């Protein structure tokens, strides 16, 4: 059974400068117990997509007519975009869906204790009374590896270390046993050593709780560690998706290849870094055709700037949206590539 089905998601913001398309015809699925990694640069639409799942985008947001966000749990199925009132939206805010944010310090209210914020959520969604909510919260804080949890319960976010704050955030997100957990760059603000601990914790918990996780990051290394499947986003589109090892070992889309080549390599410190050339275009000037054509090293004039590339199946459940995979073009480019010795 599929837990989350995102179909043809299109998100637009109306701004004084004009209408901005932040997410364009995005579809993906998340299964229970599965970690889906969403990768992309800032501005790729990954956070906007995640926030749409909880209807957290600002009031100037419009969704495409055919966009569907369906959440199916054993108990109930929810059509997320059909939730109109704030009260209805509670279903996907902290109940069936929880979210962990990038900065654990900033996501706790500074003048409220960790405990009061945890209890508030439990009272709201589970109808627990304060003593029960407190017991459960302390239990969860211990579960995520916070020592002396009873004391931490009464402390404020500024009294905890960075790693501990993110653990507390995870405990809070898990307290209602959501079916889907969205983690928006949960490890970006942490030290590398702490990062690994938090990732391990999240994987362990996903297994224990059987929940689906959407893990958003710009860090391919983190994705390799955490995700079962990965979707690479660029300018509001998914350009490549598939099982994480398959995609990272055999990247099919020029953008994914660029991202992988841009990573520093520990085994060859002399190697030059090869950044993806150019800058991500302004969302007000979305390129026609393939959105990546302005930066693509394999840009093919006449095709890429006109036609939107469809998703091609390039391997086992591995999709890539690039004209490169259209046979005729692929063979010519492949020979050109061979001659230039560009690594595939």
């Amino acid at each position, binding site marked *: 059974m599929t837990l989350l089905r995102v179909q043809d998601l299109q998100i637009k913001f109306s701004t004084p400068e004009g209408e901005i398309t932040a997410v364009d015809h995005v579809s993906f699925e998340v299964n229970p117990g599965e970690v889906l990694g969403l990768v992309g640069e800032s501005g790729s639409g990954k956070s906007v997509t995640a926030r749409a799942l*909880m209807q*957290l985008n600002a009031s100037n947001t419009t969704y495409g007519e055919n966009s569907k966000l369906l959440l199916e749990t054993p108990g109930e199925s929810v059509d997320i975009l059909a939730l109109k009132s*704030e*009260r209805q*939206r*509670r279903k996907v*805010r*902290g*109940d069936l869906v*929880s*979210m962990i*944010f990038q*900065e654990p310090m*900033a*996501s*706790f*209210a*500074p*003048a*409220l*204790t960790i405990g009061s*914020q945890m209890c*508030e*959520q439990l009272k*709201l*969604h589970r109808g627990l009374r304060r003593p029960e909510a407190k017991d459960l919260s302390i239990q969860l804080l211990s579960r995520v590896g916070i020592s002396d949890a009873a004391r931490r319960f009464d402390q*404020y976010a*500024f*009294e905890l270390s960075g790693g501990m704050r993110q653990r507390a955030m995870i405990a*809070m997100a898990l307290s209602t046993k959501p079916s889907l957990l969205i983690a928006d760059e949960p490890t970006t603000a942490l030290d590398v050593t702490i990062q690994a601990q938090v990732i391990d914790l999240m994987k362990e918990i996903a297994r224990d709780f059987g929940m689906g996780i959407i893990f958003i990051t710009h860090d391919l290394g983190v994705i390799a560690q955490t995700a079962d499947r990965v979707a690479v986003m660029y300018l509001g589109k998914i350009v490549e998706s598939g099982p994480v090892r398959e995609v990272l070992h055999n990247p099919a889309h020029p953008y994914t290849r660029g991202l992988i080549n841009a990573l520093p390599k520990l085994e060859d410190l002399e190697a030059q870094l090869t950044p993806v050339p150019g800058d991500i275009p302004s969302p007000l000037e979305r390129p026609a055709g393939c959105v990546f054509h302005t930066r693509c090293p394999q840009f093919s004039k006449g095709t890429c700037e006109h036609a939107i590339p469809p998703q091609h199946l390039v391997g086992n459940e591995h999709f890539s949206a690039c004209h490169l995979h259209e046979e005729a073009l692929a063979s010519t480019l492949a020979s050109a590539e061979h001659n230039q010795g560009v690594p595939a």
Partner: protein
Amino acid sequence: MASFLKFIAVRFAAAFATMLLVSFIVFTLMELVPGNCAERYIAYKTTQGQLITEADIRAEEVRMGLDRPYIERWVKWVSSAIFRFDLGESCLWRVDVTQLIGDKLGISLGLSFAALMLTYVIAIPVGILSASMRDGVLDSSLRVASYLGLALPNFLLALGIMLVSTVFFGDTLTGLFSDEYRDVPWSMAKLGDMLSHAWLPILILGWSATAIQLQTVRALMSDEQGKLYVTAAKARGITGMRLLMCYPARHALGPVINSIGFDLNRIFNDLPIVAAVLALTDAGALLLEALAKSNDQQLAGAIILAMTATIVALNFLTDILLAFIDPRVRKGFF
């Protein structure tokens, strides 16, 4: 708890030190006024037809202790103010300054605090409301109104209201008491009469403070609303009033409380002008009289000291209040 008590002790010491420094500055300022208290009194007597000699002045100076060194006189002034609540005698009237100021200071403080209350009772809820409906009709019209409040000086507003009232209602709205209550002792009737007159000075004193505070609250709220913890709270399902009050409003409160002291200061600054325009008989008017007309250093110094003490005391209280509502202040994180 121990850290909270320590916090209070430290703030109290700081407030006390500030007061000592202020008293020194006020004392010095009063010293810098040409002539001293003895000369002033003797000069006053001359106008009554008495013949005064240089020796009389010297004798009066010795009697008043004006021949003692400057620092010694400051210490005496401050210590008797602290321990006996005695601020010396008026140079001119030869009565205790405390007695002279007495209920006039009470009236001034009453007006000022009422203006302060008015400011916050209006500015906090309206500012919050305005920020939560940003750029709506209410928000826009409130902003226009508060810019008007900022642009229009208090005394001009007072004159405007008096003009309208005089032309259309035949009442000048000046003074704090009706004629029949002016010189009678305090009674419930007199208090009621005062209250029926007090609304205008309170309104005028609170006018620009409200306008400024409204903008401040709105800006603080807008700031807080954009913060991640508000989105995070929303993502946990918190909605409506609870989301507004427990999150951005709760956290915008700190700087607002912090500014109470400034507002009292602003209101005190306006006090003499408003007193002059509205013909009030409060400490503001007395201060103006002491400074501008009779050059009564002792009296002016005492009024200024009393007002500053009020501001320092209020700041001390707001510091404690701030520590009470914000754990970061209380636990020494800031």
